[in-house]
């Protein structure tokens, strides 16, 4: 029955801290933990924020578009209504008797005043005969009376078309000032009279702009060519035709660049004229609520990030700090347990050593008492100096014997020095066997030393290794009932130095074998074994990079094999020091 104790197996002694970590490990752990926590906490937050931001943006944008659209449509309707009313006003003012008897300027002026009460943008009012001659006029440009308008586009258009009114684009006309006209017609058979009112584009523009729903928004009317129909000044602005899409009943909202700035633009086509109402607002203004919301979101996010990051940093630092302190406390406990176990094994040994010390003490006592006896007249003995000298010699020998025993004991009880050094295993074995020599002798145990002389050195802590060998030798001795043999064998096997401690004792069952390296497991009686010896030994050998193997069967003894790596120096030099 043979089994190997795997280095990383389940039997790893808890007394050996394989997980003992340095500060660097905890630093790394802290970093790892920090990143993981940050990712876990921040990713969902960032993703959610991004998602809601885009969703909100889209909704808000749509809202802004719809709002602008409705503003534009509302304004378009207002302008349409205004034009329709003017047409209606003109129609109702256009009396049928004027066709035979043109009104005097006074009457016409009253009519103009009536119109101007409705809206200040009306400039003048004129009546045209079917041949295009202005026959009656009220307004500032009286010199127009008698002029022939038959070649004017509006007049021709009005005469030709089905519809009884016409609204022109802005033009200069005879007066040389930008204006547009609204004209209605009254027919006598196929002779068409016209009543026309001219409109100041600037004042009309004011009306168009009258109701703003956006701050900084501008509203104006352009014709199909993109010429503004609402402006101030003496010159008709150049067309911006590229920006006017084909006429459509739908109001459309687009983003355009004007003067290097993004704008939102709504185009609503009028029904009364071939004009389109433009409502334009700088994008920055239109999207102000979005930017504001974004600012709030980003602010909130940054705040949350700061809180989360600081909490994560703080808690990982504290957590890992705690781990580290627990780890060092564990290490301290481990050392304490190790020392306690060592003291326990020293205590076990001390019991054996008591015998070794009491024997020389008994000799001292008896020799001294004998000398007293000789000097006591009661016994009638003669003082013989040679005899006394011999007895005193026996006393000094006994004292030295006692000293050497306590000396050896003290060597084992010493606190261990933690640095491993290069040592020959045979030397260590001899030292431990010397301590156990008397014990083995009186226990009728024969010790056979089978050393390989040219063994390479091993890197061990002498004191710890003494303890391992002592533990194994004690166990071997305890396994032997009356008489027996312990064979100590050393060999080199590849890069290992193997030390066998073989006994002819009672051996172990499989059940016992499975547990021998567990701490506090003992087959010795209560108070005789601590159950720590093998556990500690395993830990020590393991910490030196070695391993312990056991071969045992009930009735045929046990062999414990310690494998220690050949020290690197020895390996490099190829030398040996058995």
């Amino acid at each position, binding site marked *: 029955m043979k089994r190997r104790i795997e280095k990383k197996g389940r039997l790893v002694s808890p007394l050996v801290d394989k997980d003992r970590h340095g500060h660097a490990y905890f630093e790394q752990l802290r970093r790892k933990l920090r990143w993981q926590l940050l990712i876990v906490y921040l990713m969902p937050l960032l993703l959610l924020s991004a998602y809601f931001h885009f969703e909100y943006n889209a909704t808000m944008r749509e809202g802004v578009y719809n709002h602008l659209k409705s503003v534009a449509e509302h304004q378009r309707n207002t302008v349409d209504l205004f034009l329709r009313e003017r047409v209606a006003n003109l129609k109702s003012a256009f009396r049928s008797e004027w066709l035979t008897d043109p009104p005097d300027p006074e009457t016409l002026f009253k009519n103009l005043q009536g119109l101007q009460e409705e809206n200040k943008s009306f400039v003048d009012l004129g009546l045209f005969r079917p041949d295009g001659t202005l026959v009656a006029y009220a307004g500032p440009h009286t010199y127009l009376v008698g002029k022939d308008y038959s070649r004017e586009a509006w007049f021709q258009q009005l005469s030709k078309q089905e519809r009884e009114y016409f609204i022109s684009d802005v033009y200069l006309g005879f007066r040389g000032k930008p204006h547009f006209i609204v004209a209605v017609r009254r027919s006598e058979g196929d002779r068409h009279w016209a009543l026309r009112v001219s409109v100041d584009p600037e004042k009309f523009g004011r009306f168009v702009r009258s109701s703003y729903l956006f701050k900084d928004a501008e509203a104006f009317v352009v014709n199909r060519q993109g010429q503004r129909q609402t402006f101030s000044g003496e010159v008709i602005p150049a067309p911006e035709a590229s920006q006017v899409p084909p006429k459509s009943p739908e109001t459309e909202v687009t983003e355009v660049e004007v003067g290097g700035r993004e704008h939102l633009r709504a185009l609503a086509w009028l029904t009364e004229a071939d004009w389109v109402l433009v409502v334009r607002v700088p994008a920055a203004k239109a999207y102000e609520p979005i930017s504001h919301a974004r600012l709030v979101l980003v602010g909130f996010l940054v705040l949350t990030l700061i809180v989360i990051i600081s909490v994560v940093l703080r808690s990982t630092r504290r957590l890992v700090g705690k781990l580290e302190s627990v780890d060092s406390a564990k290490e301290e406990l481990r050392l304490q347990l190790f020392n306690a176990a060592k003291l326990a094994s020293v205590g076990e040994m001390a019991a054996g050593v008591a015998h*070794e010390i*009491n024997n020389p003490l008994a*000799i001292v006592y008896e*020799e001294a008492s*004998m000398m007293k*006896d000789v000097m006591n007249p009661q016994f009638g003995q003669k003082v013989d100096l040679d005899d006394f000298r011999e007895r005193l010699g026996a006393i000094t020998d006994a004292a030295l014997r006692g000293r050497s025993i306590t000396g050896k004991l003290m060597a084992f009880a010493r606190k261990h020095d933690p640095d491993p050094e290069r040592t020959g295993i045979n030397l260590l074995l001899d030292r431990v066997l010397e301590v156990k020599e008397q014990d083995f002798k*009186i226990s009728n145990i024969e010790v056979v030393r089978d050393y390989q002389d040219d063994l390479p050195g091993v890197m061990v802590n002498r004191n710890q290794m003494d303890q391992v060998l002592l533990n194994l030798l004690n166990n071997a001795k305890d396994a032997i009932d009356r008489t027996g043999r312990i064979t100590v064998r050393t060999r080199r096997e590849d890069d290992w130095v193997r030390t066998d401690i073989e006994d002819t004792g009672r051996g172990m069952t499989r059940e016992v074998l499975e547990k021998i390296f567990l701490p506090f497991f003992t087959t010795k009686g209560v108070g005789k074994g601590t159950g720590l010896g093998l556990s500690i030994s395993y830990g020590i050998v393991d910490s030196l990079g070695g391993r312990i193997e056991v071969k045992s069967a009930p009735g045929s003894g046990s062999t414990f094999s310690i494998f220690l790596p050949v020290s690197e120096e020895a390996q490099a030099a190829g030398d040996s020091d058995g």
Partner: protein
Amino acid sequence: MASKIKLLIVDDEERFLKTLTQRLGLRDFDVTPANNGRLALDTAEKQKFDLALVDLKMPGMRGERVLELLKEKDPYIEVVILTGHGSIDSAVECTKLGCFGYLQKPCETDELLKVLKDAYQRRVKKKLRLDEDKMQKLLNLATGESPLGILRKLRELEDKG
């Protein structure tokens, strides 16, 4: 006391054995030393001892075994243990095996002498009681037996004792 107390000392410490033999010799003991268990048993085979002073930890035969075998051979011998390494467990074991006393090295002479003398007294008392028993049995035997028959039974009794 006319004759000396016959004492067998068993100890592997030669120097101790020699000196103690000398010292007890000065004190009316007839001491025979033996430096191991086997020799002690062989000696006890050849001559009767009143008492034995036995060490426990010895190469070869252990003291406990020596005690056991001595008692087996002669139930009236009183054995005192004198050991360098005493323990409760070992004291209990030795008492069970019939030792009279359990002493630890180094032992003061007065104490050793007292225990040895007590042991000898017990042996004497046991012997006396045995003699009384023998007399009683002899009387019982004597009734209705021929002189030859009485002699024969007496020899049987001696052999058993």
